[in-house]
């Protein structure tokens, strides 16, 4: 497995970890005592706005830690160059992510059209964002291995 594939795997694991820990934190801190917050748009807005910077910072920190550990164990240096093949793979992965998220967005809107509770829409949006992220990263590994 080359360093690019390792970096992608780290991103996938980080995404799952960050999402799981944050979801548990929000549930334990706010929702367990106040389940009525589920239908409060303001609560969901704040949850999303905090999640984005937290996820970005955590990804950066975890990638730095991975680079240090990988460097010590394998004496490899991380690829800094992003060449035309990397960009093509990135574009293909973004396209997959885009379609998946669009599908999730339509499901979320559909839930409101069918008169479901507000939290169904927000949970669907969060889930589609999470799934599209994981699938697009997995697609990158597939393209790196199979070719583009």
């Amino acid at each position: 497995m080359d360093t690019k594939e390792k970096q992608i795997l780290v991103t996938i694991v980080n995404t799952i970890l960050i999402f799981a820990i944050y979801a548990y934190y929000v549930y334990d801190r706010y929702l367990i005592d106040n389940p009525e917050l589920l239908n409060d748009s303001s609560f969901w807005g704040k949850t999303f706005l905090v999640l984005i910077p937290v996820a970005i910072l955590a990804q950066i920190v975890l990638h730095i830690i991975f680079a240090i550990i990988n460097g010590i164990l394998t004496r490899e240096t991380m690829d800094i160059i992003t060449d035309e093949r990397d960009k093509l793979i990135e574009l293909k992965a973004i396209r997959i992510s885009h379609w998946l998220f669009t599908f999730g967005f339509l499901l979320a809107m559909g839930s409101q059209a069918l008169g479901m509770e507000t939290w169904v829409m927000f949970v669907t949006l969060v889930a589609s964002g999470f799934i599209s992220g994981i699938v697009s990263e997995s697609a990158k590994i597939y393209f790196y291995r199979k070719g583009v």
Partner: protein
Amino acid sequence: MSNKIKIDKCAITNNIRKLRFMANEMTQQDLADKTGVTRQTIVAIENGKYFPTLELAFRIARVFETPLDQVFEFQFIPSEKS
């Protein structure tokens, strides 16, 4: 009357492995450094898993100081008639 244009399949092959050998066994990393891409991209090109842009193809040809058609070969594969 049908106006469909029949296009044969094509195959692009390359001689990079041979050219590296003839260039004093140049390593994939050396070629990658000289063309500004990663070693993995050179590996993918050699294995036919990635077809480079024209710019990169010319860069590779320039490294070996050889015409482009000596590095990459293009062939039509005649499709079977039904």
